């Protein structure tokens, strides 16, 4: 792929940088609240230090969930993915004005939602299940953020169209195709959340209607709530497929397989939400089983990704003199913090993936649902596979954005390893405690039913959590000094990797989105329509709201 004339993307860089700034602030709030939770579980309760800012354990936990998985991820992705698309198309975004308007809308939404959240008027967790009732501004603000993400989709589609007019015969560049699929998948998936907000929660919280159907709201939430994990993961895969192979000194193994896996994610990400509702009443077992089936089906593109990425890493390592069946792994350029962080994220993700299959199995789920096992699980996935990969990406991208070299490679390497080690301890303890029946979303330090044997592992939550916190602080320090104080020369941006089996070999249907979208709509309809219709017709389930915190 020819190098991009990066000076042409100056405006895109500033936009990406703006999104990243908000993302970093969110992550900062996220890890501070995380530290207090981890220490609290370990018996060191420091919440009194945080009053009057944080009013309770649950107030802190609501901040933690929203800031980490709704704000840090979303803002990072909306900054990163369009930038990658612009580089791949080798042209600016279709509308820079739209890009900035999107950013403005999302920040306004965040502020509107953030005020009640900070003031303890939305201590409803990031899942905000009604009939727990937050201040209306919380719902309105989050909805604006979602609308903002749709505008990103629009801009990407317009950019694709403009590029296509000039290149009627060319294959869509792989990173651009991935960017497009990520946002189109998300736009479909977010319709559940949008419906929940616009039809149920906003009118109810404003007092326009008296009641809400809690099960229907919850179901609409999980319509979006599972595929949102693919909204976090696909941008990570974009990096693993199109940049990491180059950073590892090799090439992507198979471009057609990469395209196929993204299309399968587009197809299969959404009709799976009931796997978060196995333990709910009011949904027939048969339909739960249908969602189990789709959940295992999405495992197929995940495995394709795993094999393809590992094969690409191997190509890189062998080109650097790596030998043996496994030993080549040591020959990866481990001194590059961007690569090291992302490979560590992959390793962690392998464990997370295995754990996820247990959650997805509808019988095993009974053991672990709503226990700290789940908390252990998603700190491996979104908390590490995604977060540590994003950190790795920023180790090359932030220097490019600010035009100065990374302040310290060594500090960055230390940071990535610390996160991995801290997370291993932290999540091991949470997994085991969950299997011993420790519930999540619970102020364990004050619980009336704590079991003595929990005490053997709870210290590890505090120790692991503290290590992660230190790692996060080193991360912020390094980025800040890169921005303000680095004397290192500006780096050359990482280029997209070539493929061993290139796009020429890919069947053309892998470039056409429309048939996949139609199929995806059919799957979603089959998986959801009967249950949703049944719930909507159920009028007795009309519940007024409660403020219980």
């Amino acid at each position, binding site marked *: 792929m020819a190098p991009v004339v990066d000076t042409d993307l100056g405006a895109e860089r500033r936009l990406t940088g703006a999104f990243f700034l908000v993302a970093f602030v969110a992550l900062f709030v996220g890890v501070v609240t995380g530290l207090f939770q981890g220490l609290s579980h370990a018996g060191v309760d420091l919440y009194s230090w945080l009053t009057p800012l944080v009013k*309770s354990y*649950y107030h802190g936990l609501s901040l933690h969930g929203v800031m980490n998985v709704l704000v840090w991820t979303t803002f990072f992705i909306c900054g990163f993915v369009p930038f990658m698309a612009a580089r791949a198309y080798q042209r600016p975004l279709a509308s820079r004005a739209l890009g900035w308007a999107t950013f403005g809308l999302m920040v306004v939404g965040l502020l509107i939602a953030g005020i009640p959240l900070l003031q303890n008027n939305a201590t409803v*967790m990031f899942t905000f*299940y009604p*009939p*727990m009732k937050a201040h209306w501004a919380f719902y309105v603000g989050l909805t604006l953020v979602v609308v903002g993400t749709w505008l990103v989709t629009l801009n990407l589609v317009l950019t694709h169209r403009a590029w296509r007019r000039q290149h009627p015969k060319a294959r869509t560049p792989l990173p651009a195709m991935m960017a497009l699929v990520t946002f189109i998948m998300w736009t479909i998936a977010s319709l559940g959340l949008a419906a929940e907000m616009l039809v149920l929660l906003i009118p109810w919280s404003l007092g326009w209607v008296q009641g809400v*159907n*809690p*099960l229907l709201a*919850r179901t609409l939430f999980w319509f979006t709530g599972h595929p949102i994990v693919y909204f976090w993961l696909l941008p990570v895969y974009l990096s693993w497929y199109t940049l990491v192979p180059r950073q590892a000194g090799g090439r992507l*193994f198979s471009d057609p*397989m990469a395209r196929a896996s993204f299309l399968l994610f587009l197809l299969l990400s959404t009709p799976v939400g009931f796997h978060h*509702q196995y*333990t*709910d*009443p*009011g949904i*027939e*077992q048969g339909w739960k089983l249908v969602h*189990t*089936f789709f959940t*295992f*089906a999405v*495992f*197929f*593109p995940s*495995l*394709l990704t795993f*094999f393809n990425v590992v*094969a690409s890493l191997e190509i890189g390592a062998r080109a650097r003199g790596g030998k043996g069946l496994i030993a080549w792994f040591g020959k990866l350029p481990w001194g590059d913090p961007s690569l090291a962080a992302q490979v560590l994220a992959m390793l962690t993700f392998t464990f997370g993936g295995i754990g996820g*299959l247990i959650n997805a*199995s*509808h*019988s095993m789920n009974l053991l672990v*649902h*709503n*226990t700290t096992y789940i908390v252990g699980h998603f700190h491996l996935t979104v908390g590490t596979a995604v977060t540590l990969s994003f950190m790795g990406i920023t180790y090359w991208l932030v220097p490019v954005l600010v035009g100065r070299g990374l302040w310290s490679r060594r500090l960055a390497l230390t940071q990535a390893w610390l996160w991995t080690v801290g997370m291993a301890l932290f999540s091991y303890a949470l997994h085991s405690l969950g299997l*011993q*029946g420790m*519930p*999540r*979303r*619970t*102020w*364990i330090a*004050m*619980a*009336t*039913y704590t079991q003595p044997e929990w005490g053997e592992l709870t210290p590890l939550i505090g120790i692991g959590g503290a290590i992660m916190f230190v790692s996060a602080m080193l991360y912020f320090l390094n980025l800040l000094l890169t921005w303000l104080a680095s004397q290192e020369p500006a780096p050359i941006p990482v280029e997209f990797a070539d493929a*061993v*089996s290139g796009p020429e*070999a890919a069947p053309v249907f892998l470039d056409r989105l429309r048939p996949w979208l139609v199929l995806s709509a059919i799957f979603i309809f089959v998986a959801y329509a009967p249950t949703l219709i049944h719930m909507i017709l*159920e009028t*007795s*389930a*009309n*519940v007024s709201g*409660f403020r*219980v*915190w």
Partner: protein
Amino acid sequence: MAKNDTTLYLYELAWILPSVALPVGMLAALLVTAFGAHIHLPGQAATLDPAHIDTTSPFDQPGLVEVGVGRYEARIIAGIWFFNPPEIRVPEGSEVTFVGTSRDVIHGLFLPDADVNVMLIPGQVTRITTRFPKAGEYTFICHEYCGLAHHTMAGKVIVEPLE
């Protein structure tokens, strides 16, 4: 070149096949164990109006009811921040069907030692059956965040030894 392409193609196939086979195999194993072990999840039981819960059967009379030899129904109402009744007693070896709902926000009913793990959602009735083969005390806890005192919401099944 052509030969090279075929090798690549075979390579790709070598990755694709296990990627299909693994989930299919696991799904099959899952189905066999799920049906073989008679594991049941809550399904559509009944709905009610939570505003009238105290006059709606069976929640007008919460508590334990014997429905057959060694078989009981435990009717439980969850509300902030306790279960009604907070304690039930059954003889060793009983089969107990929990019939639960919530009068306010969403709660959970979790008996880690008896494989009960369900949600109690206002407006919906949750039914789930389990057995207590061994005498002892079994704590049940609310494992869905339900407000400021969520961590104090728990109850007990006391399984009494047979004489």
